[in-house]
């Protein structure tokens, strides 16, 4: 009996450790991928270091340049080829190329976007498109101290703040992060109903209680009136 018990315990420990190790493997296999996806979604496009993969001049003009699928802007076509190099410079990978041939840094990306989206650019300059200067997350104290030029530097550019991914600028592709959208709205508490006293709120109970008393008083009054009607002859003086 004791031997059987010990054997059972050993078997149980062994199986539990097996399951545990398998579970651990599954988790360790899945977690890094998830984290990587999140970091990609959260990272601003400016933090990609193009030089890391494409050293200057030695780059390749592949049809599918990245493992991630790029849509919209990478579908631009120039002379029959996929037009990565309409916006990117072939030799200097960390620079953007305007149609005029001028090279600009990634921080001046609005200049590049302006070439096609002029109306949007105008409204952005005016402050209507995107977050405007007055709507930035600044307290009242900072607003009085800071100069206008500094404020213009703080304004969100096209690809800042996860607004637009430059390769896929549609807004609903924006990674909102974990926990969004926030939970659905709560409805007001149920209106008190005599026929459906299922609500546990104290006022419901109180209303139901007063209602019961009211109804019992009504019934008593009705009964006494009945008795008086039945016995009406007895009340008459002879």
């Amino acid at each position: 009996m004791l031997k059987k018990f010990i054997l059972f315990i050993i078997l149980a420990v062994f199986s539990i450790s097996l399951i545990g190790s398998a579970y651990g493997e599954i988790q360790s296999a899945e977690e890094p991928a998830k984290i990587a996806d999140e970091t990609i979604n959260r990272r601003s496009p400016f933090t990609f270091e193009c030089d890391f993969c494409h050293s200057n001049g030695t780059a390749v003009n592949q049809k599918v340049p990245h493992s991630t699928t790029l849509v919209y802007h990478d579908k631009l076509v120039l002379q029959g080829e996929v037009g990565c190099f309409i916006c990117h410079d072939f030799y200097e990978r960390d620079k953007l190329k305007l149609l005029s041939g001028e090279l600009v840094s990634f921080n001046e990306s609005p200049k590049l976007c302006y070439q096609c989206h002029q109306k949007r650019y105008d409204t952005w300059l005016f402050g209507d498109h995107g977050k405007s200067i007055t709507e930035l997350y600044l307290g009242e104290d900072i607003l009085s101290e800071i100069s206008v030029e500094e404020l213009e530097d703080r304004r969100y550019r096209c690809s800042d703040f996860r607004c637009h991914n430059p390769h896929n600028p549609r807004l609903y592709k924006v990674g909102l992060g974990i926990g969004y959208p926030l939970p659905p709205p709560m409805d007001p508490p149920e209106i008190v109903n005599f026929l459906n006293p299922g609500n546990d709120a104290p006022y419901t109970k109180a209303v139901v209680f007063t209602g019961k008393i009211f109804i019992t008083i009504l019934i008593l009054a009705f009964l006494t009136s009945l008795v008086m009607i039945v016995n009406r002859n007895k009340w008459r003086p002879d």
Partner: protein
Amino acid sequence: MIYMDITRRNFLKLSGMSGAALLSGRTLTDVASNLPWNVEKVGKYYDDPAPVEGVHYAMAIDTQTCIGCRRCMYACIKENNIGRTSGIQYIRLLEMEESSFDLLHSNQYYTEAPKEDKWYLPAHCNQCNNPPCVQACPVKATWKQDDGVVIVDYDRCLGCRMCMINCPYWARKFNWIKPEVPEDEINPDVPIRPIGVVEKCTFCLHRTRKGLTTKCTEVCPVGARKFGNIADPDSEISYLLRTRRVTVLKEDLGTEPQVYYVG
């Protein structure tokens, strides 16, 4: 004998409450706790800035950019000291079918957003220039101020809820239970409403009349909301309304809403 100072307001409150108690289902205990001699008279002063001259506030909402994240809804609840258990929201987000304007069959309780084949419509008080809710009030507890904000006097409100019936935008909400606000989250600029009054969006007048924007405009991550003075032709919102296609909700009712939807 107990001395009672029955002014006109108290008398109206009493008579209204005794009638409303039967209609609205409020208990006797609730009515008794709201009687004028039982209400705690707190001598707190709330900063109530007067409307600025030459200003008419309006809001424009870009429905192309709204992603339905509900950040504005919860920021508004915190900013305006709305009871967390009252089930009241000044802003509600409607998930609309693509290329339709069917407000009746919109979904408010979606859990996934943004979806590609849906669009999102934030709905709140439109601060109408011809407000039907003001006409409905029997005691003149609500009116339109000079800068375009329709406000409610919580002391004067009887809780008859006629304004809620007349409002075509479902903007007014009733305090069915006592608002519960956590003590560390109370905004000192806004009074906490008593039970049994109607409340609504005020365009954050405690902020906007001091030169700030509304809270919903500030927290919007995509900048879908624009708030400003349409009396000023150089303001952002005037430029927006001049250059984009604009619509309002239920235009045929003639309420002249001041919340414009830009598409």
